[in-house]
C-alpha cells in the first residue's frame, strides 16, 4: 500500500515537471480588453468596449476592463485567448528612443513591458520576458499604442517578445499613431475579423492589413497606422471560432 502511494507521488512529481506551467483554458475562452481615460484627456475606453462586444458575439467570454492596472493584465493574459490594449506607448526623453511597452492607468500609472534591459521604471512594471510557457496559448494580442511594434534599447519589442513567448497572432505599430485613425483601425479590424468579407470572417492577417486601407479611404491619411507590424502563425487563422491558440 505504501509503495503504491510512493509510486503515485513520484508520478505526480514527474508530471508536474514535464507538463507546462500555469495557464488555465476556460470554456468559453477568456478575452480581456483594456482601455483608459488618461489624465491628459486621451480616452480609449469605447474602442476597448467595441472589441469586447465583437468578441462576445463570436462567443468569447470577453471582458471590458477600463482604467485597470498593468498587474491585472499581467495576471489575466496567462488565461486569455485574446488580449487587447489601447493606450499610450512608452517613450524616453533622454535619448529620444521609444517602444517596448504600454502604459496602463488606474489612478496611477503602471507598465506592461517587453523586457528589462537597462531601465528601471519609476512605476510598477511587469515584463512579458518573465513568462515561460504561460502565454503560449494566447490566440491574439493587439497592442494599439505608439511604437508597440518597435524595438527599444531600454524595453525591447512587445510584438516580437509576445511572438517569441508563443502568442499566435500579435499586432502592434512601429511608429507613433494618433488616436483618431488608430481607433478607427481598431474598430475596422475587429469588424473585419467577424464579418469583413461578404458577411463572413476574414483571416486575422487580412483584417489587420485591409483595415489600414479603410483608414486611408475614410481620412485620406494614415495617422501612423501604416506602420502596422504583425506576426502571424501559419497556417493563418480566423478570430472565430472562439478558442485558445496553438501551444
Amino acid at each position, binding site marked *: 500500500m505504501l509503495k503504491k502511494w510512493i509510486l503515485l507521488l513520484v508520478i505526480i512529481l514527474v508530471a508536474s515537471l514535464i507538463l507546462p506551467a500555469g495557464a488555465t483554458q476556460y470554456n468559453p475562452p477568456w478575452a480581456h480588453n483594456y482601455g483608459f481615460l488618461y489624465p491628459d484627456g486621451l480616452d480609449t475606453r469605447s474602442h476597448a468596449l467595441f472589441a469586447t462586444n465583437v468578441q462576445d458575439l463570436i462567443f468569447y467570454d470577453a471582458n471590458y476592463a477600463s482604467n485597470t492596472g498593468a498587474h491585472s493584465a499581467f495576471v489575466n493574459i496567462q488565461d486569455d485567448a485574446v488580449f487587447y490594449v489601447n493606450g499610450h506607448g512608452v517613450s524616453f526623453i533622454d535619448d529620444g528612443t521609444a517602444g517596448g511597452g504600454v502604459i496602463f492607468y488606474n489612478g496611477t500609472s503602471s507598465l506592461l513591458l517587453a523586457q528589462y534591459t537597462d531601465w528601471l521604471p519609476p512605476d510598477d512594471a511587469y515584463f512579458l520576458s518573465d513568462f515561460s510557457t504561460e502565454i503560449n496559448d494566447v490566440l491574439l494580442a493587439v497592442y494599439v499604442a505608439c511604437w508597440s511594434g518597435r524595438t527599444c534599447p531600454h524595453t525591447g519589442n512587445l510584438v516580437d517578445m509576445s511572438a517569441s513567448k508563443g502568442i499566435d497572432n500579435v499586432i502592434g505599430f512601429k511608429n507613433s499613431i494618433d*488616436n483618431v485613425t488608430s481607433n478607427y483601425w481598431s474598430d475596422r479590424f475587429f469588424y473585419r475579423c467577424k464579418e469583413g468579407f461578404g458577411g463572413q470572417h476574414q483571416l486575422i492577417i487580412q483584417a489587420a*492589413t485591409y483595415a489600414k486601407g479603410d483608414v486611408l479611404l475614410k481620412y485620406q491619411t494614415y495617422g501612423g497606422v501604416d506602420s502596422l507590424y504583425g506576426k502571424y502563425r501559419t497556417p493563418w487563422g480566423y478570430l472565430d471560432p472562439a478558442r485558445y491558440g496553438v501551444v
Partner: protein
Amino acid sequence: MLSLLILAVCCIGLSFPAYGMSSSDHIPNVYTSVEEFAKDPTIDLKMNRNEYTPHAVYIVLSSANEEFWVNEESLVVERYSSFDDLLSCDRVILSKEEAILKAKIFLRDHGCDSNLESFTLVKDELNNGGDILTYDILWQEFIGEILTPNFTFISVNPNTGSIVDYIDIKRPITVLLNPAISKEEALNIAVKQFKGIEIEESSISPRIWYYGENLQKLVWDCTITGKPKDNVLQGGNVIIDAVTGEVISRSRWL
C-alpha cells in the same frame, strides 16, 4: 361627377411613390461596373453591404477572393482588394521600380491613370509590416500647396507583382481656396490645444477636409509633437477651419 373622379385618380397617382431610377434599377449597373473593371463579364459577384465615408457611399460586391467598392453615385469602382494575393507577400522579388511599373500598368489597364498626370507621387516604399511586406505607392493631388482629398493608392505584392489593394478617389473641389486665417495664426491655435507641452516639432499645411457628408472645408492640418512627459509622447494633430479659425478636430498621440 367626372371631374371629381379625375381629381381622385390624380390624387391617388400622386400618392404613389415615383417609379424613376429606384435603387433596384441601379443594381444591374453596379454589377456591370465591376464586370468592366475586372474585365470579366462572367465574374461571380455577390452584393454584400454598403460602406459609408464622408465623401461617398459605397456598394460593396465580392467575388471568390476579391472585393469591389463601387461609388453609389458615380458607379466607379474606387476600391479593389485581392485578399488571397496578400498571403504571398512574404518575400521581396521585385524592385521598387518594377512595383511602380506594375502599379501604373494596373491603372492604365483599368482606365484610372489619367489622375497621375496631375497627382504627385508622395510615397513609394517597401512597407515592412512584419510578416507582410508590400510596396505601398501613393499619389496625392495638390493645388498649389493645398492637399486635396484626391489620391490614388496601390499596394503591390513584392513577391508576385499582383495588386493587393487599390484605392482611387477623385472628387470635384467645392470650396474656395483662400484661407482667412494665416498659417501662423492657425499654428498658435493648434499649440494652445496642448497646454504645458514642450514642443519639439510642429508642421502645418493647408488641405481640403471632409467634415460631414459630402461637405468640404479648407483647413489647416497641424501636427504638434512635444517632449515626452512621464514617458508619454505629448501632442497630436489639430484640424483648424482656415476661414473661421474653429478647431474642427483634435487627436492625440498614443
